[in-house]
């Protein structure tokens, strides 16, 4: 069975959590005791309805304030597909938590309150969706019950959002008018929105074509851990453990270890101690090489005829996620999967303005939630591909060495 990971996004109170609650409720993915708990915690509501947002708003502070603070993950399946949902917060203060959920999603549902139309947070989350190159975008025009299910309101929002999408280069957009609160076009097709001829949300989620995004061409393997049992029978065993980021590796392949640039041959490929002949992305595997080379965590093994880039100067897009501003000239740790190198932010070229979606010069420091183009210089060469080519090998984080916080998402150009 297929697995689809998706996220809900959009501004505060646009109905993201309610939508997920409705999706689970109407697809009968809520169990009896969870429902009872839900009814109990909403029984002081005057109209007797249950607050479906409480299914994902699992923190006390969230329930008290009626907002989502951090991503919640929910799991459900239908006979057609298995789903992992991330319910993101809409509040601008918690954008980094939204990015956390979005970084592993292959589909994003951007909610828009039909009464409000496209607002700043809609654009901010759309910028993030385009940066992260999330493959599929659903624009859910929600709260249609509050605009009398008006087709005109819906069409106006489609026109507005199309403009945002064009500016950001977002493709594959599907628009669905809905009411998460009442369940229109979530699991069942709404009779109150008869003018809409498309599918309800769940049908769409079940049927959207998940062209396999695993790259099996450009082989990349980064060493996470060196296995050396040093027992009598495995005295000289030296296995490089890691996850195949992309491509296929076979016994006998001619490979090069980077950044050292040393050539060797694959002597064996193993999974869980068993030789398998070949391994492919995204399997976690162990490679052994024919030659005795000094290889450690963070080094990359590639096929000799297909090389990534190696450089200590990187052009990147940064999403700044820390309360403290980014200071040009500051040093950070750059963590690129299992490789950690010191990096200095040399220059910030421009930022993306969340209102105009245009590039703008940066005045002063880069602040929380800003997206900027920058140049990084690293203390040791980094082995990478562009995010556009191979997202898993073109992404990294910056860590502040004094606070240990993750302060930026890095997308390598």
């Amino acid at each position: 069975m297929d697995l689809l990971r998706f996220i809900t996004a959009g501004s505060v109170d646009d109905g993201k959590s309610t939508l997920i609650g409705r999706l689970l409720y109407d697809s009968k993915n809520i169990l009896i005791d969870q429902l009872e708990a839900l009814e109990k915690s909403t029984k002081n509501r005057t109209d007797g309805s249950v607050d479906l947002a409480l299914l994902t708003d699992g923190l006390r502070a969230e329930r008290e304030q009626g907002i989502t603070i951090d991503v919640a993950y929910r799991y459900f399946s239908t006979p057609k597909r298995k789903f992992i949902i991330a319910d993101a917060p809409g509040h601008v203060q918690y954008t980094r938590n939204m990015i956390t959920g979005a970084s592993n999603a292959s589909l994003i549902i951007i909610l828009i309150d039909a009464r409000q139309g496209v607002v700043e947070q809609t654009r901010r989350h759309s910028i993030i969706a385009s940066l992260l190159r999330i493959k599929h975008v659903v624009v859910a025009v929600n709260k249609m019950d509050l605009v009398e299910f008006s087709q005109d309101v819906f069409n106006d929002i489609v026109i507005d959002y199309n403009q945002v999408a064009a500016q950001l280069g977002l493709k594959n957009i599907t628009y669905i008018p809905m009411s998460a609160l009442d369940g229109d076009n979530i699991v069942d097709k709404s009779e109150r929105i008869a003018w809409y001829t498309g599918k309800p949300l769940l049908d769409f989620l079940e049927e959207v074509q998940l062209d396999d995004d695993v790259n099996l061409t450009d082989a990349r393997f980064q060493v996470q851990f060196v296995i050396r049992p040093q027992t009598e029978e495995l005295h000289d065993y030296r296995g490089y453990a890691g996850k195949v980021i992309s491509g296929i590796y076979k016994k006998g392949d001619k490979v090069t270890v980077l950044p050292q640039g040393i050539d060797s041959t694959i002597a064996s490929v193993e999974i869980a101690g068993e030789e398998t002949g070949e391994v492919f992305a995204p399997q976690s595997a162990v490679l052994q090489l024919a030659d005795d080379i000094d290889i450690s965590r963070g080094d990359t093994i590639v096929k000799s005829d297909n090389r990534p880039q190696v450089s200590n100067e990187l052009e990147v897009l940064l999403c700044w996620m820390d309360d403290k501003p980014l200071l040009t000239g500051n040093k950070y740790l750059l963590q690129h999967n299992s490789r950690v190198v010191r990096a200095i932010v040399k220059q910030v070229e421009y930022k993306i303005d969340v209102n105009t979606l245009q590039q703008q010069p940066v005045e002063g420091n880069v602040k929380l939630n800003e997206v900027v183009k920058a140049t990084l210089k690293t203390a040791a060469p980094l082995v990478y591909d562009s995010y556009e080519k191979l997202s898993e090998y073109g992404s990294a984080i910056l860590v502040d060495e004094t606070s240990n916080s993750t302060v930026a998402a890095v997308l390598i150009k």
Partner: protein
Amino acid sequence: MNNSHHLNYLEQLESESIHIFREVAAQFEKPALLFSGGKDSITLVHLARKAFAPGRIPFPLVHIDTGHNFPEALDFRDAMASQLGATLVVRKVQDTIRQRSLTEPKGKFPSRNWLQTYTLLDTIEEFGFDCCIGGARRDEEKARAKERIFSVRDEFGQWNPKLQRPELWNIYNGKIHKGENVRVFPISNWTELDIWNYIRKENIDLPSIYFAHERKVIQHEGQLVAISEFVQPDEQDLVMTKKVRYRTVGDMTCTAAVESTAETLEEVINEIVATRISERGETRIDDKVTEAAMEDRKKNGYF
């Protein structure tokens, strides 16, 4: 698409978990795997074995023993550790209660669940563990659904849910200050059913109490609780002999049994697929007190 180069979702989950285990081994000086004897931690150990084969699991298994365990689970724990050749560290809540003169919970179902935190924090300090691997899953409970895979805890073991680190892609930042500690949950994204399907696929052994067997039980608020050294019936109780199995394995004082005829893995899975009650709802006696019970415990240093 070439189907021979495609992972199904269980294989994807397995690979993700193995990746997390290897990050732990590489990033921390003294990690430990918290082992309870239940199916989730048995699955964890199985995954850890796969992650480091043909080498050994490079960290000890730690059991925080409440003293209220099912004997079947303890036997299983000891057999498993010796078969793996793994180091097993056992620390007893009973000892912490004595050393720190803690107050024993009272009542008919005296749960030491909450007291485990004290023993856990003492054990972390005793060995200097900088990382504890746990078998919590996000589908278990609403507060767990919010926690990162690498969850940073302060020097009191406390979780701050309002200030979690961003966790992007598959990049895990395990950097901490001295005294802090990271709880890592490699099976965060697995559901209960995923675990059972994986146990079937990998032929993983489980303690016998997961399969239907006869037991003397009493009924408590609609749940079946086994009579044991720790739970005694009072006069109103009707002691019955029923065929039951356990869906989770916690303490005998706070884990309810499920009436069942499922004697094989296949039959257990069929029952789990058909049930309309969640794992926690069906089996935990102690979680119903407040809606924020789990969040509060985690804030205090619980797993």
